[in-house]
């Protein structure tokens, strides 16, 4: 009781909850699920971009891309560590990913078809991710908030690199400009779906948004964040000299925002439930790497045990 009062006060005062603090079980479970899903998204998100490492058209771009994919592995690791402070462990979370009991961002179920997709992921997908994640830097759970600060810093760097890649294409040959336009056409709507289904207006009572906001995990509704993203991104598209695949996209002077068209939520649910172009492939690649690596992890554990036994012997002797 007393503990919970302390928790409520911390949340109310916008202070951080730390691992040693008592917290409601539902809060803990919500965070575990959210942080794990976030970590999984980093790990699975390595695949669509990793697909282009061996084919990057210049060595500079190859280096940037390798570094980016590597950063994502790093983000995954911080986030699994943050989740571990809540009393789960990484291998348990990976098992849930591998068996489909925990999800990752559905955006990574789309294939990367051209080099421009690498840029589009940086620009749109990382752009949307940052929009979602910046508020999480002030999340009520301390380890998650701190992980997010580091992640956001690197992701905004990636986002700028993605834009710069596309900018170079926009200044290039006809084929390069066509590639750019095509990538924007394919990634725009999935990027808008990244903010999740509507949760404001009439929809405000459905879903987890209200509870997450009360707990200081979530700060803005999905719809608010989506609008911010559109407002930030449309001028960048104009700068790139491309169109976005939405006939209803127009500046609304009155609202001071960009209006945009209806999102195809059927597609969103379809892909989320497994009927996306790459769902099966992404999990299969991940599971194969994990299973093929089992003997390596076992060897490392056995070696560590031997070493520990040896130094214990040494200490005794």
């Amino acid at each position: 009781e007393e503990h919970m009062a302390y928790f409520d006060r911390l949340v109310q005062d916008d202070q951080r909850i730390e691992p040693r603090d008592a917290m409601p079980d539902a809060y803990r479970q919500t965070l575990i699920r959210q942080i794990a899903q976030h970590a999984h998204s980093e790990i699975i998100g390595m695949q669509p971009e990793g697909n282009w490492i061996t084919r990057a058209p210049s060595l500079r771009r190859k280096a940037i891309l390798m570094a980016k994919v590597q950063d994502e592995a790093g983000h995954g690791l911080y986030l699994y560590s943050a989740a571990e402070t809540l009393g789960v462990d990484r291998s348990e979370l990976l098992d849930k990913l591998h068996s489909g009991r925990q999800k990752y961002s559905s955006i990574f179920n789309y294939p990367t078809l051209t080099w421009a997709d690498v840029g589009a992921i940086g620009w749109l997908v990382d752009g949307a991710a940052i929009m979602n994640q910046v508020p999480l830097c002030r999340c009520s759970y301390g380890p998650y908030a701190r992980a997010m600060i580091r992640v956001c810093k690197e992701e905004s760097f990636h986002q700028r690199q993605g834009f710069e890649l596309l900018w170079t294409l926009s200044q290039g040959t006809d084929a390069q400009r066509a590639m750019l336009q095509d990538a924007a056409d394919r990634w725009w709507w999935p990027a808008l779906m990244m903010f999740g289904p509507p949760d404001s207006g009439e929809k405000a009572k459905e879903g987890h948004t209200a509870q997450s906001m009360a707990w200081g995990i979530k700060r803005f509704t999905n719809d608010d964040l989506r609008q911010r993203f559109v407002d930030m991104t449309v001028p960048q598209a104009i700068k790139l000299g491309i169109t976005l695949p939405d006939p209803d996209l127009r500046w609304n002077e009155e609202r001071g925002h960009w209006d945009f068209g209806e999102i195809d939520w059927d597609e969103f649910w379809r892909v989320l439930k497994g009927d996306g172009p790459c769902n099966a492939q992404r999990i299969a690649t991940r599971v194969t790497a994990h299973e093929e690596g089992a003997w390596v992890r076992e060897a490392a554990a056995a070696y560590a045990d031997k070493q520990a036994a040896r130094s214990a012997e040494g200490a005794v002797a």
Partner: protein
Amino acid sequence: TTLHVRYLLSLGDDALVYAQRLGEWLTHAPQIEEDMALGNVGLDLLGQARSLLTRAGEVEGGGRDEDALAMLRDEREFRNVQLVEQPRGDFAVEMARMLWFASYQCELWSQLTSSADETLAGIAGKAVKEAVYHRDHATQWVLRLGDGTEVSRERMQAGLEAVHPYVAELGEDHEAARWAAEQGVGVLPSSLTDAVNAHVSAVLEQATLTMPDAPRWHARGGREGVHSEAMGYLLAEMQHIARSHPGATW
């Protein structure tokens, strides 16, 4: 191509092609830490390759930059050893390859810090630190796998056997290297072999592994652009997009 350019290409192509193979590991490593570590080694080598190819282009004086050299040369013009172009095997094979290659690079770069080619000396100064890290990383894994489980010891030993026929080529005194050694630009590869073998042998002994017997066959010819059949596929993948857009900037 002058011998100076050919020497620089031999160094640069080793780094480039091995970086390409290491890039294939990302998302396929046995644990996420290892995706990062292999990515790191790959990135270091890619950085070395970029500097070396840029330098080769300068010395050549024909206006070719790193990308022209990486993306628009044909297979017979690549001068890397066959070790680095071999298709990705299992993790033990990769650690065997990395142990030998990084041990070689440690000796190589520490000699080249005093190259008469000052740009090359500068590259070597940075690269030697990287190579020491790579060698250490591979060493740690060879120890863990060799002295880990029974399965891992067997696989590690098999990895060493698989890689061994490609090792001798690193110590081959090809024409460009002989020229470079005479000029003080480079070093004779054969002069590095004892130190490389000493390091590898010490690691294997500690790891309870056995140095493979002299192989029945060993690779040769990479420095003259004679590669194994795996090389063409590697280049097809690496160069396809660049070749598909002649003259484009990325």
